[in-house]
């Protein structure tokens, strides 16, 4: 219970920070919505931890709910790293286009 309360306080801090960033226009609407949904989902999962424990046990996993959440989080993080890699690749290509344009300008 204490751990859940601490986790919810941390999430509340990040939500407040997110709201402040949006107010100051440091982030766009899409990014705001994404992180808002992310933190609300995280809070929901923490509140429903007992239900997740039962769900996980019902599905036949021997791990507890929080462990399954951890595995899922790592998977999601890997996915984000992968997306970042693709994004970098696109930026690299754009840089090359600019370099090529400069090289061929007036030639």
């Amino acid at each position, binding site marked *: 219970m204490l751990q859940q309360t601490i986790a919810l306080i941390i999430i509340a801090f990040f939500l407040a920070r997110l709201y402040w960033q949006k107010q100051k226009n440091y982030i766009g609407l899409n990014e705001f919505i994404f992180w808002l949904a992310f933190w609300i989902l995280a809070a929901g999962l923490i509140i429903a931890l007992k239900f997740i424990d039962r769900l996980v046990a019902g599905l036949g996993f021997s791990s507890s709910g929080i462990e399954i959440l951890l595995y899922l989080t790592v998977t999601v993080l890997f996915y984000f790293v992968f997306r970042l*890699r*693709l994004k970098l*690749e*696109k930026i*690299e*290509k754009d*840089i*090359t286009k600019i*370099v*090529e344009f*400069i*090289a*061929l300008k007036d*030639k």
Partner: protein
Amino acid sequence: MKIFCVIPAFNEEKNIAAIINQVRPLADRLVIVDDGSNDRTADFAAEAGVILLKHIINRGQGAALRTGTKYCLNNGADIIVHFDADGQFLSRDIKHITAPIKNGAAQVVFGSRFLNSEHSANMPILKKYFIMPLAKAANKIFFNVNLTDPQSGFRAMSAEAARKISWQQDRMAHCSEIMFAVKNHNFKVQEIPIKVIYRNFGQNFFGGLKILQDLFIAMLVN
């Protein structure tokens, strides 16, 4: 037929002047693409009076060849030759690699180090018997390309073919990509034996893996 030769160069101040002197008599125009060198490569090329295209930062051999090829296509080339600046290729082979395009026997010609066993005799053993067969197998499995030399950087293409071949890879994976594009367009292809003087090991096993990784990422991005 106007032959344009594209030579990408990155930190090749020791070789570039000699390469220019060797290649210039064999091409109507010599295009040096300085790929963001930190040394005096660009100065030497400018002093030699050849066409110099400058990448303001290093973007890789594939990107430099693309820039040079675009220049050639915009300036009336009939045949475009890709050549290296490190002095490993022999300039006399330019005559042989352009001949099949001149007489209409091919639209794209690749130089191969493996058509004449004498030419690959001085290839490092690890490269000859391990890396090259692996690269050849990768080309066959992933791209259905069945050329004798899987990573030859010495090639010639007609302007018509060059307009249709587009390679996206900035670094070393462009070799496989060009071969794949040539196969996809059903161009008339020939391979001719070329001799290579090895001054360094060149592409190693991990370089080969990097090429596969780059091609895989490119497939996902596209």
